[in-house]
């Protein structure tokens, strides 16, 4: 155990800090759940990419700079501390990216990853269907092989920002006689392909944050299949855990929220006096975020030593999503009567940013596998409790 950063790590941190100080937009970008904001975020991602800062842990020839996971954590710490824009292409970069690294052919990696790192291609995910949510193995959308192509028919839903995105990835049933997790293939589909129809769904914030995607005889080349045909379930599962647990929501994000919460409490205490219950909730928030950060360094250390992280990462997802919710609830309590005000309202505090975070935090325990499913995974795979 040695908790000091080395010279190379410190130099990397200094470089990232300086670059961000000079380049983070002084005015916040518009919401990436709008067309205009989405394109602003794409532009920002392009700028990150030009400086090899969008996907620091990817290999250099695929658009990254070959950093290790510790350096990735350092990057994330600097990124969130700098108040830089939210990452608009995370579903591609953190969910599909690692799958391509592990299962993609060289051709696929070079075709997709550099453009993904640059956000020239924006990615939406296509896991859920109307009758396949938590029960993902119930997917019914078909992708039937026809010569060198797959012909796709069916419907996906809850695809984040799909109306603005360029591509979608997901699981499709390639063997029409198969059941459950057999006979599925992991495909990537351009969203401008003939036969694709996208219908936006307004989210809680009133914006077109996600969408339904309909496929009518959509044809994609067989080379758009990631991993072997019919092996889609294991391809999706192999990388699901670690990414869902750690990469998708790095600890720095919640440490920054905790810091803002501390600032909010100090202001509250100055205005209204100390409040023990609120103070305790603020301390819990800080401790929770800190524990997640420490746990991430511990995990990264184990991965560096060759450990394979499995069901343990389901714990991360439960922890960060419920921590985020709790911190935002605490903030709303401190904002009191002003908490309900949307950004742009003359009396809104922090331009409604806590409210926006509060709304999004409601989704945390639901997306990327509901926390009920995560708790099943923890109980069955870590504790060995019997399946129902």
């Amino acid at each position, binding site marked *: 155990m040695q908790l000091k*950063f080395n010279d190379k790590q410190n130099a990397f941190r200094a470089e990232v800090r300086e670059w961000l100080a000079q380049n983070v937009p002084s005015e916040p970008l518009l919401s990436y759940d709008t067309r205009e904001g989405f394109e602003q975020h794409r532009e920002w991602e392009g700028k990150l990419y030009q400086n090899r800062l969008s996907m620091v842990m990817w290999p250099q020839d695929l658009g990254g700079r070959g950093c290790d996971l510790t350096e990735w954590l350092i990057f994330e710490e600097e990124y969130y501390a700098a108040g830089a824009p939210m990452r608009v292409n995370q579903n591609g970069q953190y969910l599909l990216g690692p799958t391509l690294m592990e299962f993609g052919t060289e051709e696929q990696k070079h075709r997709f990853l550099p453009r993904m790192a640059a956000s020239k291609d924006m990615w939406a995910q296509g896991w859920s269907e109307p009758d396949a949510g938590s029960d993902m193995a119930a997917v019914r959308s078909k992708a039937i092989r026809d010569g060198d192509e797959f012909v796709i028919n069916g419907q996906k839903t809850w695809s984040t920002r799909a109306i603005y995105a360029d591509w979608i990835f997901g699981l499709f049933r390639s063997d029409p006689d198969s059941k459950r997790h057999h006979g599925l293939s992991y495909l990537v589909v351009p969203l401008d392909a003939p036969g694709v129809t996208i219908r936006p769904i307004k989210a809680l914030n009133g914006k077109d944050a996600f969408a339904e995607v309909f496929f009518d005889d959509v044809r994609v080349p067989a080379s758009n299949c990631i991993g072997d045909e019919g092996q889609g379930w294991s391809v999706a599962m192999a990388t699901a855990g670690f990414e869902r647990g750690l990469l998708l929501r790095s600890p720095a994000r919640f440490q920054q929220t*905790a810091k803002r919460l501390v600032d909010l409490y100090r202001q509250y205490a100055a205005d209204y006096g100390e409040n023990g219950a609120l103070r305790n909730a603020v301390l819990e928030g800080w401790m*929770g975020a800190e524990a997640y950060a420490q*746990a991430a*360094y511990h995990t990264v250390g184990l991965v560096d030593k060759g450990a394979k992280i499995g069901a343990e990462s389901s714990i991360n997802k*439960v922890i960060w999503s419920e921590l985020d919710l709790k911190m935002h609830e605490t903030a709303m309590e401190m904002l009191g009567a002003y908490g309900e005000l949307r950004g742009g309202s003359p009396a809104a505090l922090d331009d409604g940013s806590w409210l926006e975070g509060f709304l999004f935090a409601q989704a945390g325990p639901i997306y990327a596998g509901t926390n009920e499913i995560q*708790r099943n995974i923890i109980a*069955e795979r870590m504790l*060995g409790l019997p*399946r129902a």
Partner: protein
Amino acid sequence: MDFTFTEDQLAFKEAISRFLMTEAPPEMLREIWDTEEGRSPELRRKMAEQGLTALSVPEDQGGLGMDDIAWALLTQELGYYAIPDSMADTAYVASGLLTALPEGTRRREELLEKIAEGNFRVAVAHSVNPLVADVHVADKILIEHEGQVHLVSRDQLDYERNSSIDSSRRVSRIHFKASADSKIADADCGAAAWGETLNRGALAVAGQSLGLAQRMLDLSVDYAVQRKQFGKPIGSFQAVKHKLADVVSGIEFAKPPLYRAAYALAHGDPRADLYVSHAKLACCQAAMVAARHGIQVHGAMGYTWEADLQMFMKRAWALQASWGTAEFHRQRVANDILADGAAIGPQYTFEG
């Protein structure tokens, strides 16, 4: 940056675990509970033979000179097996206090040597603890008095024995009159040493609480797999699964703060108070959740004297307020992170 343990450290934990598993089965704990003194000289002798009492005594005094990180691992094992002995008070907390005093402090080297030898018990009385563990069997008692360090024998002290719900814990209230004879160190060097001592006491409680939590989880998982209702193991029901998932989550997210705190203590980190208090809160909370969900999963069996769960549950409850209540430790966290210019936020996970 490497926030993991070495092979040697993991092997050490494993060896301690195997040793205690053999030497302190639950039946034996129950026997020791029923004795007047609540302590087994035999068990203590065996722990000393394993070198545990000499673990953090400096090498010059015949010890192994190991640091707080070893204790973060060892105390978990002491908790896991609910060892009915306050060995950590002598070998870690008292030893750490004496080591922190300047060389040549009256009785310092002699006491450290005796601690290393193993057949010697030192109780530690810090003002944060209104009740002091193991005064009734202590060869010496180290007492905090206005930052000074005092040393007395049992017969120089008025003490009143009390009965804890954890029959392994034997606690006394002491009445002590400070004198020039009893004083071995002034406040100018004693205050800092007592600060570290408080942190070591809290860290030892944190480690034990985490070990207790793990044991309660293991017992509850075993029970949930074996116990059948409606024709199925109760562990196949989601209501039960989700409770136990929350127990393991609490444990896994209390470990990093415990190790972070041990590292801070071992390296004289100026924010050690913050890290230790975080660890104490997280580990004690993990133990409370493990106890609550553990007894619920055990059903009526959990409410019996017969089921082993009680031994670990009661220890966990009793340790909650030992070496500082939750509020005491929350206040210490608040003192750091709510202060003007506190170094908090994503850039300060390990440096600040």
